């Protein structure tokens, strides 16, 4: 067992876990933040994407103790005071989610990306979104929602 401190969504968590424990599992089990979903555990599906110091990362490809000293942001911190972020609101309005399992990873990816590129083209959105698999929507409405969110920002 290994004791380490994590800073997630501005809160400190003292975690006792084996060093091999994936960040995705520690967030879900030790921090009880189950909004980060696990879809493949080999970095392909993007469902577990969180932000590490503001940059997107697959939580399944990070061993939790590696995150000591970094700021982690998860889906639970995106809506502020019960108000959806513009991206979340746009996904709601454009029906950009169905089963909802991949949604957190997509929101986290684009919360980061839209800060870097606030007015992306559709081709740019599709290129970045290609890192997140969605089996329900065919991506059409997700792309539309992201472009809507960017246009409104």
């Amino acid at each position: 067992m290994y004791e380490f401190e994590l800073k997630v969504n501005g809160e400190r968590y003292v975690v006792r876990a084996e060093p091999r424990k994936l960040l995705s599992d520690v967030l879900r089990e030790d921090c009880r933040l189950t909004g980060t979903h696990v879809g493949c555990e080999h970095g392909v599906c993007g469902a577990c994407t969180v932000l590490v110091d503001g940059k997107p990362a697959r939580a399944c490809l990070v061993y939790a103790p590696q995150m000591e000293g970094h700021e982690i942001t998860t889906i639970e911190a995106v809506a502020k005071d019960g108000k959806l972020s513009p991206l979340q609101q746009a996904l709601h309005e454009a029906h950009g989610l169905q089963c909802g399992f991949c949604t957190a990873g997509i929101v986290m990816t684009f919360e980061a990306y839209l800060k870097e590129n606030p007015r992306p083209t559709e081709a740019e959105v599709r290129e970045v979104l290609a890192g997140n698999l969605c089996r329900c929507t065919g991506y059409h409405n997700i792309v539309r929602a992201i472009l809507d969110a960017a246009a409104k920002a």
Partner: protein
Amino acid sequence: MKPAPFRYHRPGSLAEALALLSQLGDAKLIAGGQSLAPMMNMRLVSPAALIDLNGIAGLDGISERNGFVEIGALARHHAVANSSVVKTHCPLLAQAAGAIGHYAIRARGTLGGSLAHADPAAQLPLVAATLNAEIVLAGKRGERRIAARDFFVSLMSTALAPDEIIVAARFPKSAPRERCAYTQFSRRTGDFALVGVACTLGSDGLTLGIGGVEDKPLVFADFGTTDAASVAHAVRERVSPAENPRVPAVFRKELVEILTRRAIQQCTSSN
């Protein structure tokens, strides 16, 4: 898909990392973890110890000096692809780094990790070999530099000694009128390239790097011509991809020819 147990070490300095590396028998270095972690999660690799390089300061720099662009081993692909220094002085590298995996993968994956992993289909080993970058290795006895073309030995195997760590790579700056192009063919955005072609056209003619085809990146030069079709055909004749149930060798050869031709055409047509 959970990794086997390992001891975790996070050295604060290169010296400490090198000391750990020589003390611990069965240890793996981890930087971005974008290749290693999937293999560990699938238990294809189960090291007894993991040495995390992310705590070492100063290994992620990108700078230009003495005719080289020097990039620290911990520089992330996203930073490399978007660095104005790289874009200006080594545009082939910027292009290729931007074609790696996906946004989140590029945000974490590192130059050193990609070079050390030495996947024959990966972008950075291909560009390093094509430009014949120097790879800077640190060991207990100090630093040594090795030409990229000597560094890649075979499938996921390099000249890196078990007690060495990649600390940087030095890419020659492109000459003022040099042109370059990177093309790849993959099934989907972000997938490993079935074939990748890195091409430069300078005063000494064409240099072509071909990735994904044999067990390490191949580099061809001295064609005596810049005619796209004939060079592409010549390159096709010089590669011998292995048969693979997913990708027949003849298909890879065709891709080599077409991508080579297209890369050369990009170089010769761009202003």
